[in-house]
């Protein structure tokens, strides 16, 4: 009778989960072929938009600008949507109750799910860059300071995980049992408009720019572009400020997300809504 797993046993869970997802992934080959075609078409659309837009001040070529936005957006959407999506799946398939009665616990399960989704997102990002560079001729210099992108991306993922967890908590707290709940959906949808994924936020009307300033992704996207396109390094004040902002966002949002998520589980334990089928 085991009440909790050791670190190595948790790694074992993660390993088997990744194998399981990979097996399922290979079973649905056609759907993945279609998703890659869709990504190719998206890149092609932006390549032709670039023909009209051309250069944009501060960042240079629009195509390389938007390719970075699309890549970061993969990680953002993954982080914002996966927690709620996983809750949704666990609820409808009775997984939540079975996981709770196993020594694996929810943290290990979510870590496994997130690892898979980030691996998948990384594969998509690699596809964006390979197609962008080798098919459509995007030019990246990848400066020596490019490594700073990784801690910025990690901080962005941590802070957005907080929002993702808040979104997942709404599944239980606000009985948002559909595929969509307002908080996660709002942040994910607004990201496209105001966070600078497709164009710099400075072109937005002033009141809308205010919204962009409360989202951590606005700072992260801008900093990553400055590093990859303008060769800025960690010594740049704007990059340092971005890192500080992201740390602050992470410190506030992640504990808040965890608190709300746990509150959601407690509410479900009281109401008997851990599973769809009683």
């Amino acid at each position, binding site marked *: 009778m085991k009440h909790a797993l050791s670190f*190595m046993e948790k790694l074992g869970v993660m390993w088997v989960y990744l194998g399981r997802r990979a097996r399922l992934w290979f079973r649905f080959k056609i759907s993945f072929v279609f998703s890659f075609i869709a990504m190719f078409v998206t890149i092609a659309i932006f390549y032709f938009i670039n023909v009209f837009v051309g250069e944009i001040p501060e960042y240079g070529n629009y195509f390389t600008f938007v390719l970075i936005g699309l890549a970061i957006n993969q990680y953002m959407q993954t982080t914002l949507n996966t927690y709620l999506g996983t809750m949704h799946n666990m609820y409808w398939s009775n997984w939540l109750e079975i996981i709770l009665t*196993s020594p694996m616990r929810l943290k290990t399960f979510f870590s496994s799910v997130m690892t898979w989704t980030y691996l998948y997102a990384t594969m998509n990002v690699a596809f964006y860059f390979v197609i962008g560079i080798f098919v459509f001729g995007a030019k990246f210099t990848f400066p020596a300071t490019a490594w700073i992108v990784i801690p910025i991306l990690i901080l962005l993922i941590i802070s957005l995980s907080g929002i993702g967890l808040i979104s997942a908590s709404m599944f239980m707290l606000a009985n948002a049992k559909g595929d969509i709940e307002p908080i996660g959906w709002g942040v994910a949808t607004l990201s496209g408009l105001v966070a600078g994924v497709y164009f710099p936020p400075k072109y937005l009307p002033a009141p809308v720019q205010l919204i962009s300033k409360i989202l951590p992704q606005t700072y992260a996207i801008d900093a990553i572009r400055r590093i990859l396109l303008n060769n800025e390094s960690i010594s740049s004040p704007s990059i340092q400020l971005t890192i500080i902002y992201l740390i602050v966002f992470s410190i506030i949002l992640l504990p808040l997300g965890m608190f709300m998520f746990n509150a959601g589980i407690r509410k479900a*334990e009281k109401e008997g809504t851990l599973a769809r089928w009683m």
Partner: protein
Amino acid sequence: MNPIEIENITKKYRVREKGFNWKKNLKQLLKIEKQDYLTALNKVSFSVKKGEIFGILGPNGAGKTTLIKILAGLLLPEEGKAAINNYDLIKDREKIRTSVNILMSGGWIIFDYKLSIYNNLKFWGVAEGLRLGEVKERIEEVLKIVGLHEKKDDFPENLSAGLRQKMNLARCLLSDRPVYLLDEPTSNIDPYSAEFIRKFIKEMKKNGKTVVLATHNLWEAEMLCDKIAILNRGNILALDETKAIKERIGKEILTVELEKITPGLIRGISSFGFVEKIVEEKNILKIYGNIKRNMPTLIDTCRKYTNITGVDMKESSLNDVFLQLITEKEKTMVMK
């Protein structure tokens, strides 16, 4: 201490209305209006000894699943105390969850239909703490136990409901825990698979496991359970050893169909010392007691008052107790 001890457990569910009534919701939020609750369990108390099979019997909506989920630490009661495997229901909820095995009816929905039985079980095996090196061996062991060894590479989508329930049972057996909570484990499956599961439950008892079996299959409960609680609308109507519950209404039942039933006939039959109880239903009399030896006397008594159109004699079963308790208020009962 017994592995299961529960005392005055009460569980209420908030009644949800169809659609969204914002006025009512706001009033309830501001505590101006009280919320409507449905009592799923009302002060339920019992204990289960080690190695005992405890049956929870009741019609649909009686509160059986609610009780099973409370025992598994997956649902919090509003009132009452409980200790499962010596863990407190509120404080040690996480330990309770990992010290009981729960098998739900239709629980196979957790399996991915596009993965083989083996690959489905592999994940749940490591989730139970089996090392990568030992998980394969354990899966093969449990598949042999449930008789699915030769089908380990089959996909759940190709299995019958009975085989899926066996697969679910195999998942349950991946970890060795002292208490098994089985919620209608044989419902919606073929008789052959159901019989297999019943035999398996008996084996669990032999191995010293404590089993709580929620069912509405009375025959199954009678055959398997040492002790039974009959539950209806959240209330325990009867709680005793299976044999004692059956004997509550008499050993045998004589059902006599008559042309008419008169007060004189009832008085006449009631006067016999071997008659324990009489139930009147339209023109049918059900006579409970030591009937077998005294049947001629009873038949003669009935003939004195009216014509007999049909006679049936059987030993009383749990089914009779159950029906009697559940529908007690709706029947006219003439007690001796």
